[in-house]
């Protein structure tokens, strides 16, 4: 409450008011714009075939460098990320106008932008992974931006869990790849292709890397998180979930193509999964009515196309992939912003009620129409070039060319239908009476139509000047993916009638016919199969999460009984079983010498005193007696440390014993009456566990004394202590210098444990709090 008052006060200041009206977008877009221009200035260098590298040593002992590379592939991605980023930052200023948390929104957006730039420029496997994870985390924050809504939070969590799990698999895959290739530098992997493929690690590497890439780029069977991510504000959908982040998986496959590609496993897996994703996405897209969901499923389809093209590979496949990547980013970024404009200006995203917006929103309509033409693949837009290249490569595929081409044609027909639904239907009069929308539509402010207009114009310009603009960078990008120089000739219109040109004509004709006549049937079919193809995956995932949580609860119930004696039993029991297993299988027990040093009288006496103390504790009838007995044991051990010349230990043990006695006295009178409540059998069980623990410690101690291999450490510390660490007390020097980081960890743990005890003792949860907690946990279960 107090916070909202403060923000309200802030919003009255002229600067904040201006920022909230959307002005902030103009200022903030300067940063990505300057970066775009900087990277654009590298274009001549890169297109001439030069590769730029920069590297800083990061963790030399692990071969990890903070290394970056600018080549055709990374430059293409960087320009897409930053260029579309500039427009999205500007767009978000208008779209999010009036949002009090706009600062937080931009923080997340720039966090993502930085992560994405780092990811595509990375030239080290670990560097790449770090940025990869950062994109997952910032995506989570952005999807869950409207955190007051349950659907936002659960979609964000779903996306994080899937991409996070994929990230873990990827980390394992990249580490294995680094081991197999004997280098972490990505640009050196290509030359070690033979080494990697024949290393025996190739299969696990391939599986793990593909899990990482498929989860990120929403490939079948992980495609369902992407439509869920549409809970994010539309600028985020336009940026992350169409033009940039979801392409990270595609980027990874392209980047690692020289290292992992060119094997039947790679080609078949990518082609099959890509084709399934392509078809499934296109099929589900045309049965949606929400603009953003239509676009989300077409994005899934396009990502499938890109993965399939990498799988088909060869010069045709890779060139088609590079061109289609740019085609898709331009038109999809544009169409998402158009969807945002419609939503923003009419209050609805439902295509079944939107119509005739052409008159009120002419500029948005123009942008949408151009982008949709590119999406449908009509000349002279860039999309036409992309589609021609896709058909050229599927016809040329090394296996199942006919099947792959059929799937591609079918998907593209559906894409034309989807393009019509997104860009034609809401704008043109449909003949029927116009439904009223929640708001009266009008053209949005310039910040919101500039982005779509620029992207749509680029779709046209890049198409018309495909040779001048696209050919140089696509050549270098394809070279980077293939790992060898290639000569690429792009052309807008075919010079002769080829098979793929005929396929293009067929696709466009069938697409238009389907849009006009087959839409109700497609809608019906989609609705009929929605339970299995759309909700089935989401439900399956939700079940998986719920079952995992149920399992965790079961484990917790089994182990966390809330009784201290049970915790002690479990802890000691676990230590004894694990350590004795290691001791019995690994250690040489014959090395133990039991009586090789004679005992002095005072040593024997001390041991007898300790034993007496133990007996006293066991037979105690009151707490005071038990404490006295324990104290006797503790001080007896202190004496033994003293006999064997360990003054530091003596002092520590002495202080600890004194403190324990003090503590006991402090709480003694607050404890309940001392009675025997445990059953005889449970005491017998405790006695066995305790006895085994004692036996284990004795064995370990004896082994440590007997073990020859442990000796060299003592002279090392004795030697190095004064020379290197300038201290004569070896124990202390080990604590604060040689193993200082351990000590730092220990004191941190001590501090946290102390805070925990403090909270347990002082925090009294009111019943109402307990109830709120219970409700919260049921909320989680519903995920």
């Amino acid at each position, binding site marked *: 409450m107090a916070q909202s008052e403060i923000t309200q006060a802030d919003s009255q200041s002229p600067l904040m008011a201006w920022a909230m009206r959307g002005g902030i977008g103009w200022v903030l877009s300067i940063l990505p714009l300057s970066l775009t221009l900087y990277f654009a200035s590298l274009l001549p260098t890169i297109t001439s075939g030069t590769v730029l590298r920069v590297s800083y040593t990061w963790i030399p002992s692990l071969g990890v460098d903070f290394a970056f590379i600018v080549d055709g592939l990374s430059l293409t991605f960087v320009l897409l990320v930053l260029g579309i980023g500039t427009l999205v930052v500007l767009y978000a200023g208008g779209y999010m106008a009036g949002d009090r948390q706009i600062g937080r929104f931009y923080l997340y957006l720039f966090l993502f932008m930085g992560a994405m730039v780092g990811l595509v420029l990375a030239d080290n496997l670990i560097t790449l992974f770090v940025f990869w994870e950062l994109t997952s985390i910032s995506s989570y924050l952005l999807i869950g931006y409207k955190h007051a809504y349950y659907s936002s939070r659960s979609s964000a969590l779903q996306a994080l869990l899937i991409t996070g799990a994929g990230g873990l698999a990827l980390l394992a895959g990249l580490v294995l790849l680094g081991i197999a290739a004997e280098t972490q530098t990505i640009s050196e992997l290509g030359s070690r292709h033979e080494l990697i493929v024949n290393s025996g690690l190739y299969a696990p590497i391939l599986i793990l890397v593909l899990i990482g890439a498929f989860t990120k780029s929403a490939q079948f069977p992980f495609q369902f998180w992407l439509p869920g991510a549409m809970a994010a504000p539309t600028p985020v959908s336009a940026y992350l979930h169409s033009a940039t982040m979801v392409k990270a998986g595609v980027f990874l496959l392209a980047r690692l193509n020289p290292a992992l590609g060119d094997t039947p496993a790679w080609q078949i897996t990518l082609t099959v999964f890509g084709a399934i994703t392509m078809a499934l996405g296109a099929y589900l897209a045309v049965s949606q009515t929400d603009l953003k969901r239509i676009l989300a499923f077409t994005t899934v389809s396009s990502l499938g196309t890109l993965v399939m093209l990498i799988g088909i590979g060869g010069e045709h496949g890779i060139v088609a992939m590079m061109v289609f990547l740019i085609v898709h980013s331009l038109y999809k970024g544009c169409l998402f912003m158009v969807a945002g404009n419609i939503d923003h200006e009419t209050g609805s995203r439902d295509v079944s009620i939107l119509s005739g917006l052409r008159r009120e929103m002419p500029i948005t309509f123009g942008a949408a129409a151009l982008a949709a033409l590119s999406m449908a693949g009509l000349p002279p837009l860039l999309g036409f070039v992309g589609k021609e290249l896709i058909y050229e490569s599927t016809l040329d595929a090394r296996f199942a060319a006919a099947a792959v081409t059929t799937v591609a044609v079918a998907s593209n027909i559906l894409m034309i239908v989807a393009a019509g639904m997104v860009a034609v239907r809401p704008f043109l009069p449909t003949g029927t009476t116009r439904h009223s929308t929640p708001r009266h539509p009008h053209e949005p402010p310039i910040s919101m139509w500039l982005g779509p207009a620029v992207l749509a114009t680029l779709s046209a310009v890049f198409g018309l000047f495909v040779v001048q603009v696209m050919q140089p960078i696509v050549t270098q990008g394809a070279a980077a993916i293939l790992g060898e120089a290639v000569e690429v000739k792009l052309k807008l219109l075919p010079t002769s009638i080829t098979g793929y040109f005929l396929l293009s004509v067929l696709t466009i004709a069938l697409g238009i016919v389907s849009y006009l006549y087959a839409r109700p049937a497609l809608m019906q079919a989609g609705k009929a199969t929605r339970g299995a193809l759309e909700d089935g995956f989401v439900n399956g995932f939700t079940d998986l999460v719920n079952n995992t949580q149920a399992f965790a609860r079961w484990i917790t119930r089994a182990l966390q009984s809330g009784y201290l004696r049970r915790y002690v039993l479990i802890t000691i029991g676990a230590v004894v079983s694990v350590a004795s297993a290691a001791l019995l299988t690994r250690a040489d027990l014959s090395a133990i010498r039991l009586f090789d040093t004679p005992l002095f009288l005072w040593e024997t006496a001390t041991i007898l005193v300790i034993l007496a103390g133990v007996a006293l504790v066991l037979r105690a009838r009151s707490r005071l007696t038990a404490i006295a007995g324990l104290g006797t044991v503790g001080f007896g051990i202190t004496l033994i440390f003293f006999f064997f010349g360990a*003054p*530091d230990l*003596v*002092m*520590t043990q002495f*202080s*600890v014993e*004194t*403190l324990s006695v*003090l*503590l006991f*006295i*402090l*709480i003694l009178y*607050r404890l309940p009456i001392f009675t025997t409540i445990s059953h005889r059998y449970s005491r017998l069980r405790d006695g066995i566990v305790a006895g085994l623990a004692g036996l284990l410690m004795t064995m370990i101690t004896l082994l440590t004394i007997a073990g020859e291999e442990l000796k060299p450490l003592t002279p090392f510390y004795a030697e190095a202590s004064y020379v290197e*660490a*300038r*201290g*004569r*007390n070896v*124990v*202390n*020097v080990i*604590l*604060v*210098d040689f193993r*200082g*980081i351990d*000590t*730092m960890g220990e*004191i*941190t743990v*001590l*501090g946290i*444990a*102390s*805070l925990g*005890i*403090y909270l347990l*003792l*002082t925090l009294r949860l009111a019943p109402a709090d307990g109830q709120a907690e219970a409700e919260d946990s049921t909320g989680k279960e519903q995920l």
Partner: protein
Amino acid sequence: MKRRPASVIFATGARYILPLMLLFAFFILLRGHNEPGGGFIGGLVVACGFALFALAYSVADARQILRVDPIQLIGWGLLLALLSGLLSLLLGLPFMTGLWPDFAIPAIGKVGTPTIFDVAVFLVVIGVVLNVVFSLAES
């Protein structure tokens, strides 16, 4: 003093023992690098002293003469430990490299970053133990 101490002899003894223990703890802390001692033991001794005082009088009295909340001691100690390790980063050396000045402070000796680290351990141990002792006795 809010209430009569439980035992006059114990209470009087605790008042005189506490300063001696603090002095001794400080001595143990500083000699730790070359002779038996160090921050951990020193911290325990300090904690013993204050716990004894809390027993003789009351926890409120002990908190009063400690002046600092034990939880704050934990925080400051951890911060100091981190800073003592970060210092070497400024010179381009790995984290927690021991740095020793060439000059010695009279009566204390050379104070290097490990000494500072040891002081940090000292503070954390005092904070941890007293935090537990005080809250146990208060609950």
